[in-house]
């Protein structure tokens, strides 16, 4: 390789500067948001010294606790359903001689990624409103179903990737040793597949936790999640309380993604 001080074939004039600007632009708004969450004043514009009062206020706010718990509940249920369904589908669509309709299955599983969120949201609004009127049921089931559906493609991706990189010969060896298909799956395939399943679950969890648009249109009265609650707050008078919630929420997402990152890294 060429010495950096003489002539590097990889260098392009100005690119590093633009890249640096890009990283600053990506992080400056988030950093500002976090800094102002520690503001002692009531305004998000004027800095009045460091304080944790807004974290305290958010923590003691019944409503925030309620919507946060609901968000976590929906995310866990949806991620569980989506991961199980996606893992089964991934087992059916990888490492086999293709079957008739496999392309269709593949397309259907990825379909939620292709449709703009707002379109899915209003389509669900129309359909579920009719079902709600017809059956009288307005519980969380609709949110579970909607979230599971759009989480499936995200759970499917890492599981499929893991399956494709796995060695088939171990399963063949198990079969040669007279293991039943179920035993082969339980004792060989599943333990090998496990990191992919965990990764899929975490992706699905974050995606469900982050959803605003679809939840906003599907939820019945009193079913706000943390993001839809925040959406409501952002249209009213904003206090640093919103910053405090955002910061906590941000740290949670970053925590999960960091875990995901290291899990993926160790695999290699």
């Amino acid at each position, binding site marked *: 390789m060429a010495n950096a001080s003489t002539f590097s074939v990889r260098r392009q004039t100005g690119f590093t500067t633009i890249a640096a600007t890009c*990283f600053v*632009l990506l992080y400056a708004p*988030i950093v500002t948001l976090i800094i102002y969450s520690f503001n002692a004043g009531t305004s998000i*514009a004027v800095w009045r010294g460091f304080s944790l009062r807004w974290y305290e206020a958010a923590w003691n706010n019944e409503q925030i606790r309620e919507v946060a718990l609901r968000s976590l509940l929906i995310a866990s249920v949806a991620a569980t359903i989506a991961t199980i369904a996606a893992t089964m589908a991934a087992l059916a669509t990888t490492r086999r001689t293709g*079957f008739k309709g496999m392309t269709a299955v593949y397309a259907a599983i990825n379909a939620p990624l292709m449709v703009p969120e707002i379109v899915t949201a209003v389509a*669900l609004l129309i359909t579920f409103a009719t079902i709600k009127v017809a059956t009288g049921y307005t519980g969380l089931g609709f949110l579970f179903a909607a979230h599971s*559906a759009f989480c499936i493609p995200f759970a499917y991706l890492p599981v499929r990737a893991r399956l494709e990189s796995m060695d088939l010969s171990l399963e063949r060896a198990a079969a040669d040793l007279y293991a039943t298909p179920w035993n082969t799956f339980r004792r060989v395939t599943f333990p090998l597949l496990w990191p992919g399943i965990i990764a899929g679950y975490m992706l699905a969890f974050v995606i469900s936790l*982050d959803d605003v648009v679809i939840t906003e249109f599907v939820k019945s009265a009193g079913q706000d999640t943390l993001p839809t609650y925040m959406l409501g707050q952002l249209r009213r008078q904003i206090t640093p309380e919103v910053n405090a919630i955002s910061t906590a929420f941000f740290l949670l997402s970053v925590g*999960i993604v960091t875990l995901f990152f290291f899990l993926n890294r160790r695999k290699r």
Partner: protein
Amino acid sequence: MASAQESAALAKTKETRDSWLLSAPALVIIFFAALGPLIVMFAYSLMVKGDYGDVKFGEFSGDGWFGVFFNRDIFDDTVTLADAHLTIFWRSVKLSLFTTVIALIFGFPTAYFIATRPERSRDIWLFLVTIPFWTNLLIRTFAMMEVIRNEGIINLLLIWIGIIDTPIQIMYTDTAIMMGMLYVYLPLMVLPLYASMEKIDFRLVEAGYDLYATRFQVLWRVIIPLVKPGIIAGSILVFIPSLGAYVTPRLLGGGKNMMLGNLIELQFGQGRNWPLGAALSITLMAIVMVAMLVYVKQASKGTSSHG
């Protein structure tokens, strides 16, 4: 011999059946809560609107679709183009295109920067790009609000430097929407660009320099053609969600500067015109599908020409 063939065929049908059974739960959930409702929505777009939202079941009409492009005057039935809708269509396409181009201008050098780091540190840089992407959309939009508000960092900074005396109004303008979308979707540009830049064979770049090419010529004639599939993928990935954006224009654009997503929502809220809303949604989906087809076509061309 025959029995072996037979049992092989039998095993194959059994395997096919198992595959379908295994796929069934995912397919059922997606049909119930994603694809099925789209069909319902298509049916709704063809019905007569109800008086308080909803539709009159079984009464069909083309009014929903007619309303996408035209207005009918309530007094004398004259038909005019629906200017308001066309303005919003145009704004959506225009802002999404601008966002895509600016994202490319920032994203390309960034992806190149990451791809030319030593292998060990590339993951970390990529991780830094993905973090904002995994952060809630709402939080990112809110963070952008803090930056561009009249009392936000940009204005404070400009006043402090002395370039301006009074804050510039950025919030509730098209510029605000564009900045918000750029901020929210930029990682979607960087990631596919990086994926194709990582594979660049730098011997080709070296060959370019050996043949007395300038840095710009190498960039324009060697690097850009090599990463064209990444450029197309990144552009599509930014353009499509921008076109259907809902949260960002709603928060940063205020009530006046609507985009398609907000126009659709309006029909299900105050507008109480579900068939029109359904027809608008399908129109948006159609535009997205066209963009996607262009992408698939380009992508397949890209792979075939590179072997």
